[in-house]
């Protein structure tokens, strides 16, 4: 028994170590060939019915072996219709079955998550029936592929959101039995189900719906099946890395809210085993499967990931991508009296934003502000590919501290010969807690494109909460330090939702203009020290840009209640002793009186 437990423990620890330091197994998903099925938006076996408001289909519609009479309801088919056996719809069904088998045979990367779920590119599997309600965000590059395998029935209600350069034509759903898409869903990708596919009402599909053997039914208000959209990568990679590579920036946040003393250098950081410095921009090969961020841990600290890393510190890297992985260490235990954390903000603006005539000089201006309530010491700026970064002005009282409402200005000039994204990470300290902010700036060389800029700040109120916690209101302000208006501006907070738009689009054009400040708000009830990471996204001139803001709120935790009494606190004992002592006291008083 004892030997058995020792052996199993040893095996466990070996497995654990391998899991931590061994090579990361990559289950890269691949897009199967769809053959003749590629041109179809709707393909089914026996019948297809558009009940209710009718359906618009952008590509071909096909039934095989079903005949034209089995296509019922109101259809607007922008492609061509094919029915019966011996034609294109039969070939398409044969090719769709091959694609289905190819998808079913791909090696899994793991199980499904729950909403909001952001799976990295890979093969995600549920063996039995599954019901997913909510949002799946697919963030990746032009070449990244997602495959969703479901062994039996799938019911999906909600939205599939494409982010970054993810492509609808690279998303596949392989369903072993029936598939149901709930009302009002926005579905993305090629759905191949062995049996029936049902759209409840008013769903939109950016992709294809293929039932191999059975029926496709569309109920309720109009449904649109179009696409899937597919863009190829632009010829020029816009990003801060050589072709075939992406950049990775690991940013460290340390919270000592319970008298811990560790600092950033106490936690050496690694990307797939390569040592990296906090805030430094590193080039890694891309596209690649999974990268993993690890660190030398310190006992007495918890660790959590945010930004582009998943909960395990893993991320996928696409060509020209810029990954920011934020890793937070918090000393275990909570304060009885909460300390006030600092809050830092950095914005970086290049001048000029574009060098259309080829290589030239660019001057970056960095504006660092203390947007919290406590002065910061040890302010550092790292990761910049421009040197030297010089402090021009701002420390008005020359105390070396970034005081509240002080604005420090730095500049740096460099020559750029190719399109480049330059990133800087500003860190400051107060009350044992580090505050971090990231700023990136893109300069396009050799093309007449003006790259956009976006900037976000996050200010929690209050910054510190007494035991028991309470409501915190986060105010997020998004600005445009560039020259071109931004479309599709959106915020994602990893610890607070919904993030509500409050005001700022003064001209009501739904674009974040350079003169505008858009204010967003989110409320969250905190019961423990919490670090929020918000990502702001915007688009202009065909480029998507991002900015990060990271904010800490410290929450005290109560001591445990005193829920027992000791034997010494026996009430009868207390009373009897009291009476005894009182009696003896009285006795002495009487004796004293007598003796006097």
């Amino acid at each position, binding site marked *: 028994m004892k030997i058995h437990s020792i052996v199993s423990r040893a095996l466990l620890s070996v497995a654990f170590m391998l899991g931590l330091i061994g090579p990361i197994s990559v289950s890269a998903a691949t897009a199967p060939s769809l053959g003749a099925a590629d041109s179809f938006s709707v393909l089914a076996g026996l019948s297809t019915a558009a009940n209710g408001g009718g359906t618009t289909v952008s590509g071909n519609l096909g039934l095989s072996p079903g005949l034209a009479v089995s296509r019922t309801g109101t259809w607007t088919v922008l492609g061509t219709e094919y029915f019966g056996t011996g034609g294109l719809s039969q070939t398409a069904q044969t090719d769709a079955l091959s694609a289905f088998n190819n998808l079913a045979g791909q090696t899994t990367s793991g199980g499904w998550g729950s909403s909001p779920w952001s799976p990295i590119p890979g093969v995600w599997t549920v063996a039995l029936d599954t019901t997913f309600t909510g949002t799946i965000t697919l963030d990746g590059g032009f070449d990244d592929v997602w495959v969703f395998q479901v062994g039996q029935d799938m019911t999906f209600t909600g939205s599939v959101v494409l982010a970054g350069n993810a492509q609808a034509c690279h998303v596949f759903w392989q369903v072993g039995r029936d598939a149901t898409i709930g009302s009002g869903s926005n579905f993305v990708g090629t759905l191949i189900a062995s049996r029936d596919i049902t759209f409840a009402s008013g769903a939109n599909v950016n992709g294809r719906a293929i039932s191999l053997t059975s029926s496709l039914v569309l109920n309720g208000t109009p449904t649109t099946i179009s696409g899937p959209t597919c863009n190829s990568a632009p010829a020029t990679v816009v990003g801060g890395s050589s072709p075939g590579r992406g950049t990775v920036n690991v940013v460290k946040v340390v919270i000592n809210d319970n008298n811990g003393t560790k600092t950033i250098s106490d936690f050496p950081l690694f990307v797939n085993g390569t040592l990296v410095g906090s805030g430094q921009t590193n080039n890694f090969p891309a596209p690649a499967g999974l990268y993993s961020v690890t660190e030398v841990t310190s006992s007495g600290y918890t660790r959590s990931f945010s930004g582009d890393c998943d909960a395990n510190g893993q991320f996928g890297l696409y060509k020209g991508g810029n990954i920011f992985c934020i890793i937070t260490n918090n000393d275990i235990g909570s304060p009885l009296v909460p300390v006030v954390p600092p809050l830092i903000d950095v914005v970086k603006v290049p001048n000029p934003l574009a060098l259309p005539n080829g290589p030239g000089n660019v001057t970056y201006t960095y504006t660092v502000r203390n947007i919290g309530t406590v002065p910061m010491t040890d302010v550092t700026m790292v990761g910049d590919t421009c040197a030297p970064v010089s402090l021009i002005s701002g420390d008005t009282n020359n105390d070396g501290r970034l005081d509240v409402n002080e604005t420090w200005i730095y500049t740096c000039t460099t020559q750029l010969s190719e399109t480049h994204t330059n990133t800087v990470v500003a860190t400051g300290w107060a009350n044992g807690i580090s505050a971090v902010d990231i700023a990136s700036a893109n300069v396009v060389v050799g093309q007449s494109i003006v790259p956009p800029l976006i900037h976000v700040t996050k200010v929690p109120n209050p910054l510190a909460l007494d035991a028991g916690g309470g*409501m915190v209101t986060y105010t997020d302000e998004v600005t445009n330090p560039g020259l071109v208006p931004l479309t599709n501006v959106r915020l994602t907070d990893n610890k607070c939702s919904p993030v509500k738009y409050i005001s700022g689009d003064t001209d009501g054009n739904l674009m974040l203009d350079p003169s505008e400040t858009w204010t967003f708000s989110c409320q969250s009830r905190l019961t423990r020290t919490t670090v929020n990471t918000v990502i702001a996204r915007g688009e202009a001139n065909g480029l998507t840009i991002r900015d990060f803001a990271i904010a800490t709120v410290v929450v005290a935790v109560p001591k445990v*209640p005193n829920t027992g009494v000791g034997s010494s606190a026996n009430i009868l004992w207390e009373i009897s002793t*009291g009476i005894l002592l009182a009696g003896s006291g009285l006795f002495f008083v009487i004796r004293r009186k007598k003796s006097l």
Partner: protein
Amino acid sequence: MRLKISLKPPVFIGSIATVIFSVIIIFLPNFNRPVQGSDMKLPALLSTIPVKPVIGLPVRLQIPKLKVNASVENVGLTKDKSMGAPKIPSDVAWFNLGVRPGEIGSAVMAGHVNWYSGATAVFANLNKLKPGDKIFVKDNNGVTISFVVRKVRVYSIKDDTSEVFSADDDLAHLNLITCVGVWNKRSKQYSQRLVVFTDRE
């Protein structure tokens, strides 16, 4: 004779003090009276929490396995920043600075393990709960919310108990606390706490 006289006053004062102490013990069994966390705060909290089904204030805690059917007192923080304890040994105390049982987050209730004169109290047998056991809370709307024991853990009073008071899994929990370990005469409390973690069904 002189020796006797010089001894008398301290003894006399001591006796009076003991009597006063005993009286305090009788009428104020809970030394750690809440100094904050009154019901005043609740309307303000309610207005800002996006509560879908409104969950009422807890009024009864029932643990069929332990034959517990207890009234719920409201407590906040004591002067030393501890969660308050119930005034009556047969009651449990709900920490009213945290969420209500059934709301997303970790609601916390405490009960005494024993009482003066060797009497037992509401959570005397809390250590007998096992994962899978059921716990019910009745709120002031008459709604019963059920919970299932997930795990039982013992903490030293110096341990980090953040996970008792908070959760980040977007689920509703109810955690029950009582005393275990050895009595420390100097700090007038037990050395450990038993915490039963439960999940809403």
